[in-house]
């Protein structure tokens, strides 16, 4: 192990600037990465983290500033060049090739060969080895896309690790990983560091940063505002630096008290819902004025549950009753008519319409209501859009294409899309994935307020902390079956973890989820 | 059946030509059909055809659209039916390689005789294959190139019109109608087809003898009515002083007439149109006064084709090239023939 102080830093980025169509994304950004160091790179959504990384690795050309690797100026023009220079990156969105096999994804660009031809056997063995380091044992001949997102993310990591980088850049690798996988990843990162590899780690989860990183670079509005050892800042100070103002309350604390049920009848009652292949038998109820949580391990069927409630996936069995109206919901259209709203977990594939403006994206679900005698009421549309941009603090112009917004701001627009329909029940699937701490707090506060105003909310989140702090009641799914309910009194991360893992209900007055049936 | 001779009418009408004519061809008689060379060899080495009461024959048509080709196919089918023969027709849809494929597929079915209307002159190799299979081939309306297939050996004979002569006759007719002065635009048929190439040659060569007629533009209109109309519109706008149009085919002529009308001029008066094919529509146009003259290119090959086939089966001497006789139609005789036209 070398001492970073004696040898000079591995990477120095100084005074980097970058504009997109006249808008500054980076303005004097600086980042220094020492040897055998894991550096956190943090900032609000849109602060410029991904842009800085993409400049380092040659995806974007910088407008100004310099990049020094090992003290020598470098100017990579493509990811390939960066890789040849020892800089390997895992980009924010999972960027692999879904229809090729897992093995090929790991070896794309450097296939092992025998007599000039691709040596499949060696490749498969190599892939299995690379995945084994991440404690993953899967069929490497299957197409990558047939695995869930977390596995794909782990494959991307396995690929990057096997590339034997000097500098490994990880842009939000953990946003789709569960705790166990995060731990595995951290284990690998530590051993890499011990073998002399430096890393840049981006995450919006503060506790992760403190767990794995030594130093931190804070970006705000495209400028580096702090570069220091992480230990010298506490979480509150760190967030304050990120925001440029005193953080009122970091990560919205647990809600004061349970909201009372306003009505006896649930606004949404689900019983025995099944949807092939992963949802088998799920039951729950959502009451007006409450936030109902759904927890479960990855792949436990949470997303499928929400999708089939909303008519996005076919419901093969069971019933979904909205506001005691027996009419079945078969399509999103009918769901919207029944005053449901659904925020998908996959922003890119199921949320944004990239080249449409923020305005059109925001009012997409509202179009029927904005139409008077066949004509869209542009004035009202404008008013609503202005209103939501202000209310949610969206950093964007109304007529900007949504694709130009940072991830967090896109998410807010999508949330606004559904809020504008004034739903009776809001289905949220991972609403804060990839969202910075302050925006997350804002969104959770908003959810809290919406519930207080009488909306029913069904919230899926992989972040237990979020579930615990936001929900009045949590249904736990396991292998597509609702196995338990945890009510507000017993709600804690530990209790949830225990139930999720064991599938055993915590003893409680009304812990059997199917008991909800008796309500209707 | 093929009527003979147009030259006499041409000659008779020539006297009426304007004395102001400033070139020879404006007053000359219609040059008429060309005659087969006296020394045309006899088909001797082609596969023999047995004499039978009925035959199973095949006909490879190169494209079965447009009135002309349809009339040709119909004529072949009608005549076969009349004679009680079985006929199989393929349509290459304007595609040389499809025609080759068609012919091979026909050879595979071993007909007694094979009639081919070649798409281009260069399908000769497959004609040779028919010879190897022992099937006598008769070419109609176009021929194949000598270098690929030999007349009288690889195929029996070819029954064709003389396109060069057609172009020449059109030029004469045009010169006569215009009195030998004016600006002319020409519309050509399908790029590279021998009819288009030869008619152009005949027309332009003859026109050289008439300096008063200036050819201001030539465009390929692909035998399409709408295309000819578009092109004529554009050309008339760029050359407003045009006084005559030569269209190689009647469809293009009809398009040109429509374009002349759309340009606010009177076809047959402001602008004269001469065309070739001899369709009913064209003859009617002559009767109506919108077209000046038309050089026939008779599509009704059926009777002649089967007659030749029977002669060949009977062992008669068949020349390796048989020329079709085409008439010249103008205001003096169009009315008489319009009802028989295809």
């Amino acid at each position, binding site marked *: 192990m070398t001492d970073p102080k004696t040898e000079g830093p591995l990477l120095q980025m100084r*005074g980097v*600037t970058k504009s*997109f*169509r*006249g808008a*500054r994304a980076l303005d004097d950004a600086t980042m220094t990465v020492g040897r055998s160091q894991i550096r956190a790179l943090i900032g609000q959504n849109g602060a410029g983290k991904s842009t800085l990384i993409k400049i380092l690795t040659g995806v974007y050309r910088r407008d*100004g500033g310099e990049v020094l690797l090992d003290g020598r100026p470098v100017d990579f023009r493509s990811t390939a060049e960066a890789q040849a220079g020892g800089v390997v990156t895992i980009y924010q969105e999972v960027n692999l090739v879904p229809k090729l096999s897992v093995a090929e994804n790991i070896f794309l660009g450097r296939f092992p060969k025998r007599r000039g031809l691709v040596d499949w056997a060696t490749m498969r063995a190599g892939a299995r080895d690379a995945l084994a380091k991440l404690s993953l044992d899967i069929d490497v001949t299957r197409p990558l896309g047939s695995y869930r997102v977390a596995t794909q993310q782990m494959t991307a990591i396995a690929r990057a690790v096997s590339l034997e980088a000097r500098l490994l850049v990880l842009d939000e690798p953990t946003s789709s990983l569960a705790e166990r996988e995060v731990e595995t990843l951290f284990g690998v990162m530590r051993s890499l560091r011990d073998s002399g590899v430096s890393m840049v780690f981006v995450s919006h989860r503060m506790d992760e940063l403190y767990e794995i990183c030594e130093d931190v670079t804070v970006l705000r509005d495209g400028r580096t505002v702090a570069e220091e050892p992480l230990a010298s800042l506490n979480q509150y100070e760190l967030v304050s630096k990120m925001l440029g103002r005193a953080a009122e309350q970091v990560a919205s604390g647990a809600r004061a008290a349970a909201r009372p049920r306003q009505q006896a009848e649930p606004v949404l009652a689900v019983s025995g819902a099944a949807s092939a292949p992963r949802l088998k038998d799920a039951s729950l109820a959502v009451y007006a004025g409450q936030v109902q949580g759904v927890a479960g391990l990855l792949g436990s069927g949470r997303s499928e549950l929400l999708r089939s409630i*909303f008519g*996005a996936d076919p419901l093969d069995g069971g019933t979904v009753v909205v506001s005691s109206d027996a009419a079945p919901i078969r*399509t*999103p*259209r009918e*769901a919207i008519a029944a005053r449901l709203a*659904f925020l*998908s977990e996959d922003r890119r*594939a*199921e*949320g*944004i*319409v*990239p*080249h*449409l403006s923020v305005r*059109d994206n925001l009012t*997409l679900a509202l*179009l029927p209501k904005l*139409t008077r005698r*066949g*004509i*869209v009421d542009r004035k009202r549309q404008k008013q609503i859009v202005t209103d939501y941009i202000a209310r949610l603090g969206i950093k964007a112009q109304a007529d900007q294409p949504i694709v130009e917004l940072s991830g967090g701001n896109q998410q807010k627009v999508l949330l606004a*899309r559904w809020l504008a329909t004034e739903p009776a029940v809001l289905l949220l699937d991972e609403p804060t994935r990839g969202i910075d701490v302050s925006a997350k707090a804002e969104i959770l506060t908003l959810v809290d307020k919406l519930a207080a105003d009488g909306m029913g909310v069904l919230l899926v989140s992989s972040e237990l902390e979020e579930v615990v702090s936001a929900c009045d009641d949590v249904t736990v799914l396991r292998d597509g079956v609702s196995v338990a309910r945890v009510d507000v009194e017993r709600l804690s991360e530990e209790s949830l973890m225990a139930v999720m893992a064991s599938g055993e209900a915590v003893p409680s007055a009304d812990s059997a989820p199917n008991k909800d049936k008796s309500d209707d | 059946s093929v009527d003979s001779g147009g030259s006499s009418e041409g000659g008779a009408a020539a006297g009426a030509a304007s004395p102001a004519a400033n070139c020879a061809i404006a007053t000359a008689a219609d040059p008429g059909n060309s005659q087969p060379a006296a020394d045309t060899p006899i088909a001797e080495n082609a596969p023999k055809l047995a004499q039978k009461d009925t035959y199973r024959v095949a006909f490879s048509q190169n494209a079965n*659209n*447009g*009135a002309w080709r*349809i009339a040709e196919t119909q004529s072949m089918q009608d005549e076969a039916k009349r004679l009680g023969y079985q006929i199989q027709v393929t349509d290459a849809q304007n595609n040389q390689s499809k025609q080759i494929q068609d012919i091979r597929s026909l050879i595979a079915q071993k007909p007694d005789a094979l009639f081919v209307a070649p798409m281009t002159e260069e399908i000769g190799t497959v004609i040779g294959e028919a010879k190897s299979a022992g099937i006598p081939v008769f070419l109609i309306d176009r021929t194949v190139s000598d270098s690929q297939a030999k007349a009288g050996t690889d195929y029996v004979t070819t029954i064709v019109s003389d396109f060069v002569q057609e172009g020449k006759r059109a030029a004469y007719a045009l010169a006569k109608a215009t009195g030998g002065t004016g600006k002319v635009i020409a519309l050509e048929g399908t*790029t590279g087809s021998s009819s288009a190439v030869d008619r152009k040659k005949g027309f332009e060569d003859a026109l050289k003898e008439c300096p008063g007629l200036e050819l201001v*533009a030539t*465009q*390929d209109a*692909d035998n*399409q*009515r*709408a295309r000819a*109309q*578009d*092109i004529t*519109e*554009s*050309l008339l*706008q*760029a*050359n*407003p002083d045009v006084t005559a149009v030569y269209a190689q085919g009647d469809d293009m002529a*009809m398009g040109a007439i*429509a374009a002349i*009308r*759309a*340009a*606010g001029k009177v076809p047959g008066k402001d602008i004269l149109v001469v065309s070739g094919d001899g369709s009913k*529509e064209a003859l009617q146009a002559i009767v109506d006064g919108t077209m000046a003259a038309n050089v026939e290119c008779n599509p009704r090959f059926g009777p002649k084709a089967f007659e030749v086939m029977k002669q060949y089966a009977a062992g008669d001497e068949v020349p390796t090239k048989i020329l079709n006789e085409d008439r010249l139609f103008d205001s003096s005789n169009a009315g008489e023939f319009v009802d028989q036209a295809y």
Partner: protein
Amino acid sequence: MTDLATRPAEVSALRRIDWPTMIRRYGAAAVLALLVIFNIIFTENFLDLRNILFVQLRQAAPTAIVALGMALVIATGGIDLSVGAVVALSGQVTAVFLLDGVPPLVALPIGILVGLAAGLFNGTLVSRFGIQPMIATLVLFTAGRGLAQVVTGGRIQTVNEPIVEFLGLGVIAGLPISVFSLIVITIAIIGVTRFTPAGTKLLAVGGNERAAGLVGIRTKWVKTMAYVVAGGLAGYVGLLELGRIQASDATNAGLNMELDAIAAVAVAGTTLAGGTFSPGRTIIGVLMLRLLQNTLVAHGIPREVAQIAQGLIIVAAIYLLRRSRDAR
């Protein structure tokens, strides 16, 4: 360094003329303008109102109408290879009915119905059966023209109906029918896409079909409608073409029109991937390509050379568009 950073306002002021955007918006229009200027100088009588309206615009109008339909289909991320064949089919069917003595008031709508039905067929294959648009529309591309030939036996049928003559030679408000129709159709399409939700729905389906489905848009219906409208417009153009040559020509009517239309849409700066729609620029694209062709014809350039020029102009146009997009 700091100097630069503190003067962003000035910098952007210098760059006020946003060339890339200008090229994207007005590139085709600029080429069109150049061609017009060239013709004014070098082509006799070009500026004659009769020429502009009754030759140039009238020749372009049918393709432009078809291109508008194509632009709708392309906006959904699809493509329609069958429009040319549908033009032929609708014209032939109408011609046959007219020749059979069916009153024009029945025969003409039937032509449009044929187009709509073809569009429905395409749309159904694409949206219900999930067949890739190019292959789905290849079916009618092949069979449609065949059917048109079957209907008329491959013959050109001359139709001497006053209504057909009116379609071809008639004048409304001083404009040829086809030009007048183009204007009406353009206004209608722009009106509908601007003022009703249809436009946004169309772009949403083309931009992200799954997202559109999740906000309650009937994506299959929207896609089908795009093909139906494109088919209907092609059907109507079939009538116009029938009127133009006063005859039905199954083999040649609408031949290659789909490629002309696609080229125009592309030159207009629309990506074939879907999610964008610009009717005005599509028409300018058609006018530009048509005038180019006519200019070459008028100046006696042989067809094969004209083809080379057309190909090169299309490449040049999309190359400039691409550059302007990159420069953003």
